[in-house]
């Protein structure tokens, strides 16, 4: 599903060169649920941005769902994001004046599929809302929803186009422990239904929902272990 080889990313800040990624190799298979962890400055955000097709690597290759995307144009990358990637952000990023349904329909505005009827768009959006168990909040606006419900609307938006990977960046960072569980249960359920999920987090409780944990440090993969071994290692450390 995701195959990354010798990925490098160099930022140039004035005279100084910052090596955010120094050669990352990674393979994530279909229907895996993976946590990516690391301190700030570890290169975790850069890696996620490149995997999410929001950024391009300086060097190395990246194959997503059989497509080589590392050197694509900006417009082509937008299309890849539209069709293959679903994003969930820490602060939800819902449009305040639009209903839950309209927020979920958003990716269809930029879809390549021409001639979708409004009924078909609504059917898809309602199905996505149903999968995050929000069928009863369709016409609510973000200010009428709780934090957990907002994040579930955002998840529904992310899975609308049945993406190859669902990427979540600190999805529970703005939530309390009860709603964190509520949202993580949704991720677990989607994974159970066959969705490939990639979660960036610094909380072990969140990582515990995943099967596999990738830890980064200084732009390199520090460890890549199944959850049980990783958690055991953490306890020892």
């Amino acid at each position: 599903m995701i195959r990354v080889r010798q990925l490098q990313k160099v930022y140039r800040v004035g005279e100084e060169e910052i090596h955010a990624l120094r050669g990352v190799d990674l393979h994530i298979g279909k229907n895996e649920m993976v946590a990516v962890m690391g301190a700030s400055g570890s290169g975790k955000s850069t890696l996620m941005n490149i995997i999410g097709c929001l950024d391009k690597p300086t060097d190395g290759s990246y194959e997503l769902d059989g497509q080589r995307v590392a050197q694509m144009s900006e417009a082509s990358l937008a299309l890849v994001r539209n069709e293959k990637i679903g994003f969930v952000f820490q602060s939800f990023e819902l449009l305040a004046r639009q209903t839950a349904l309209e927020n979920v329909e958003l990716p269809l505005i930029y879809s390549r599929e021409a001639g979708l009827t409004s009924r078909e768009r609504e059917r898809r959006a309602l199905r996505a809302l149903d999968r995050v168990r929000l069928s009863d909040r369709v016409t609510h606006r973000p200010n009428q929803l709780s934090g957990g419900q907002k994040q579930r609307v955002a998840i529904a938006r992310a899975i609308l186009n049945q993406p190859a990977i669902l990427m979540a960046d600190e999805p529970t960072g703005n939530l309390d422990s009860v709603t964190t569980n509520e949202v993580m249960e949704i991720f677990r359920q989607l994974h159970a239904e066959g969705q490939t999920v990639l979660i960036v987090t610094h909380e072990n409780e969140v990582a515990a929902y995943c099967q596999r944990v990738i830890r980064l440090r200084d732009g390199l993969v520090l460890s890549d272990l199944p959850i049980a071994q990783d958690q055991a290692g953490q306890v020892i450390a």
Partner: protein
Amino acid sequence: MILSPYFYSQAIKLALSQIWANRKRSLLTALGIIVGVASTTSVIAALSGLKTSVLTEFESFGANRIYLFPNRPDDKPRNLYPREKIRIKPWEVLELQTSCPSLRAITPVTEFGVSIASEGRELDGITVVGIWPDWHEAENRRVIDGRIFNRIDESGERQVCLLNQSAIDELRLPANAVGSHILVDGRRFLVVGIVETLQSRMFGGDSNTAEIFIPFSVAIKLQSTDYFIRVVALAKSADVSEEAKAEIQRTMRRIRGIQPGDPDTFRAEAIDRYIDQFKSLASGITAIAAGIVGISLLVGGIGIMNIMLVSVSERTREIGLRKAVGATPAAIMMQFLLEAMVLCLAGGLVGVIIGKLFAVGLTMIPGARLEHADVPLWAVFLSFAFSAAVGLGFGFFPALKASRLDPIEALRHE
């Protein structure tokens, strides 16, 4: 990259909801456009109203009328072209009458001031006009009582006259004045008819002026040797009025023996020319109005650009999100261009409505001759086209800025 119809419908819906959500700001922003469009459309409405009234008046006045005046060529010394040489003589008018087949009617007109007396009154310095019978047709003025002059009046130099109602009033003649006598320069003239009052407010001025007409031959005789003749002619139709004018010019040059290359010693003018002059004046004013709108739209456009830059900056995170879910730079650009255009078009719409209301107000000003004032359809289209162009032109830079935002940076924006 082709954007779907759904994209466009959503973008326009979003633009409208943005305008509505920030209605005060939108109104203030669009004010420049509103004022510009409203002022231009009302000026155009006033002009087109004026044009309609004036052209209607020209029409009733007769578009196929031609005037002939004596005229000293420009920049020529007076001694080369003395008054006697350029003066129109009675025989020249007779020659024109036989040599110009495109004319329906032709009459010389000579005016001079004399004293007039009736039994009731004596008036000094009244203008008496000498005419041929053709004058009624050429000037489109009928008699409402009595008869017009006939050939015997003209050839026999009979002392008969026509009056208008004002002359009857001023001379204190009986209401049925036909058959009365008046004294013109001491000679007794019989009133044979009453001429209808001038209809036009624009030409011939005041309908209250006393008018006295006598046969042309008599008028020439009364003025001794110093007389002034102008000619009024009527072409067979408006279509041949240019041709008729050319015939008059050719004939005059021939009978005056003017060599090729030498200037005319007369001036022939068709009414068309006045219409053209008026039309070019009106289009000149319209062009100035268009220039003014250009300036106000420029000012309005700068306001639009400013507010669009504010909007892009306020909605940076939204732009980041849209890019993350698959919006291409072109889609973001198009969305912001559409927003600027919708804002400008909304301003244009309000401006046109205000202009229309102004036009209605103009028609109600008494005596302003603007009863036909209305915003023509082309002005409405032009207003919208200009508004859209301003949106496009001044929305471009903010839209470009939005489209170039890095989605990662945009989503991090506070």
